[in-house]
């Protein structure tokens, strides 16, 4: 009798086990890559530094709360340097999954270094926390293993730019547009989107110059002369930070005055661009208004001034610039933290379910986190703004489009 009761008790215990929290591991392993050198270092290091900053902060508090174990668990960041090389990145992404057996996989910054991770993560059925890889081809209905954390997907990111040119442009006298872009997933997709939005608008504007250049381009003097020959009313330049630096410097050096000029990184990495292009070279340039200039309501994580202060305290030497990418890295960290707090296990599909459950609910210093069904980020939209000198000669952002968030009128033509 006692034996039967003991057996029944043991069987009951076994059946009850699944509803209790599993044994917690000593640490949660987050695997990621960064580029300490090469072309993408300046966009990768701020993202990675922000992620590290969060890991140190959480570990100092005893770890991050993991619902699957109902307790705080320390984080171990397993990070390798891909040196901006996609082949090296491929090897290292594989290593993170197969050798290090990380619990969460986080991509390096930017579409170029995210691209190898997309296929590898999918092959290994590993959910990819895509930090800033916005390329349209990464997101499809048949790939459940990815979500974009901190940038709008490239297919919708340039909508405010195209909408401004097609809605407000004709009234200002903008009829001819030049489109120059770097031929990579990030800016190539944005160029396609700009073309599509302009074409679909039916507005009386025409693209008179449409050229792609290699991402490695560092000299635009001849190209600028070719654009000038087409007499455009507006010039859209879509490139990475080094492209923007070279393009804007060359525009000033050649003495060309384009009436309307857009560049991505003038707004995203303003400190870096100001150091290299100068205040004069950035004056009246149109760009995306970064979250640091917008006071988003926050329901999780630090607010912008708090994060900025912590960043300056942690990285006082200024070797890694504070900007859009630093905010993106911290936003990724917040999504991971919130995901772990709602996921009932570390199973990759459960992580996906948890990430998607945050869509529309999570409000960080980067705006509202919202995903479409493919994992593309559609919430953290950046308005179109213009860099205008203030009374002290410094640059300030003036949001000009959409009208509901505008803080001023566009200055056209560029003085």
């Amino acid at each position, binding site marked *: 009798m006692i034996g039967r009761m003991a057996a029944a008790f043991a069987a009951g215990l076994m059946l009850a086990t699944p509803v209790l929290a599993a044994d917690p591991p000593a640490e949660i392993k987050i695997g990621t890559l960064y*580029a*300490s*050198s*090469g*072309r993408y*270092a*300046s966009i990768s*290091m701020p993202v990675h530094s922000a992620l590290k900053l969060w890991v140190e902060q959480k570990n100092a508090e005893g770890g991050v709360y993991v619902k699957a174990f109902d307790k705080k668990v320390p984080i171990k960041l397993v990070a390798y340097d891909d*040196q*901006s090389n996609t082949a090296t990145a491929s090897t290292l992404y594989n290593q993170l999954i197969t050798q290090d057996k990380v619990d969460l996989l986080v991509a390096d910054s930017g579409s170029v270094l995210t691209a190898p991770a997309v296929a590898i993560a999918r092959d290994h059925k590993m959910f990819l926390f895509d930090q800033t890889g916005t390329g349209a081809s990464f997101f499809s209905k048949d790939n459940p293993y990815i979500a974009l954390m901190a940038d709008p997907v490239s297919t919708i990111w340039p909508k405010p730019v195209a909408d401004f040119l097609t809605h407000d442009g004709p009234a200002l006298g903008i009829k001819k547009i030049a489109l120059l872009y770097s*031929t990579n997933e990030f800016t190539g997709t944005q160029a396609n989107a700009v073309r599509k939005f302009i074409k679909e608008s039916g507005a009386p504007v025409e693209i008179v110059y449409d*050229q*792609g*250049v*290699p991402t*490695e*381009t*560092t*000299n635009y*003097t*001849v*190209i600028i*002369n*070719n654009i000038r*020959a087409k007499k455009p009313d507006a010039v859209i330049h879509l490139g990475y*930070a*080094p492209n923007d*630096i*070279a*393009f804007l*410097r*060359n525009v*000033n*050096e*050649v*003495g*060309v005055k384009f009436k309307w000029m857009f560049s991505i990184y003038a707004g995203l990495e303003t400190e*870096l661009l100001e*150091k*290299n292009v*100068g205040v004069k070279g950035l004056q009246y340039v149109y760009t995306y208004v970064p979250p640091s200039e917008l006071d988003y309501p926050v329901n999780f994580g630090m607010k912008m001034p708090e994060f900025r202060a912590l960043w300056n305290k942690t990285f006082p*030497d*200024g*070797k*890694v*610039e504070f900007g859009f990418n630093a905010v993106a890295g911290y936003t990724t960290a917040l999504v991971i933290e919130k995901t772990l707090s709602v996921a009932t296990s570390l199973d990759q599909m459960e992580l996906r379910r948890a990430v998607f459950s945050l869509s529309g609910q999570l409000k960080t210093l980067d705006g509202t986190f919202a995903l479409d069904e493919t994992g593309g980020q559609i919430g953290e939209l950046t308005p179109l703004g213009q860099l205008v000198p203030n009374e002290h000669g410094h640059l300030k952002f003036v949001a000009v489009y959409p009208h509901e968030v505008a803080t001023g009128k566009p200055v056209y033509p560029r003085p």
Partner: protein
Amino acid sequence: MLVYALVAGLLFGLYFSLVGIGLNLVFGVMRIVNLAHGDFLMLGAFIAVGVSALAALDPLFAVPLAFVVFVLVGLVLYRLLVPRLQGSVNPEMLSIILFFGLSQVIEALTTIAFGTSERSIDSSELGAILAPLRTALFGGDADGPVELFGQSFPASWAISATVSVIAIGLVYVYLYRTRLGTLTRAVMSRRDEAFATGINVDRVSAAAFGIGLGLAAVAGVFAPFMFGSVTPAFGEDATVTSFAVVVLGSLGNPLGTALGGVVYGISYMLVQTYLSSWADLLPYVLLILILLLRPSGLLGRRVRVA
């Protein structure tokens, strides 16, 4: 557009002649491939950034400074590395590995020291001391573009091209009008015969190595103006382009590099004008073409028999 591309190509190409000439001098004399060439160029750029940011001087002052510093660095490095390399069975192959390693070390140390971000110098600072002369020669504003054939070009391009012509001229004077230069040409022609005739090959080689590095550093001073900005990782691309320019002109003939640079510059600007998406393939396409059609380079008469 064609005239603009041709003039821009000429200015750009003259600068690339300077970028490549040091690499070719080192190869011509020692038959070693300095894969860290671009990294010395990058270090020259950081000297210019330092001269501008810390001393608030015209970056042109960085030209003699960079040259002297890197001639000395070259002499020290030569003593440390090259004799052992020359004593090996296959110095050309081993030099590739050795200087690749050196390149990685330089990039890593520079990254630790200065970070990964792009750095540049305000274009108006270059040649500020020559502003009156520039205005007299080319007209326009003292800090604006220069006018050539009725077209506007960045003043920094004209200054870089002018310094490049002067530097190439000085290399010519060194090679053809000095005793050390004559000995250098003798070593370039036949190292073993030069040694047999009693020439101090080691001394000649050390001088060529130092001058080669010095020329790379001088080219680096203008890199922030020609490429928009520089980072510690800049060296790799610079080495590849230098190699294309050198092979195009003639491997082992430093003055052939001048022609190689101009051909490269003009070709690059023409491709950027008419087939912009393909511009970055140019160094490799030119390398393949020259190796297929004229393996000794455009001025290949004096190519070494390796």
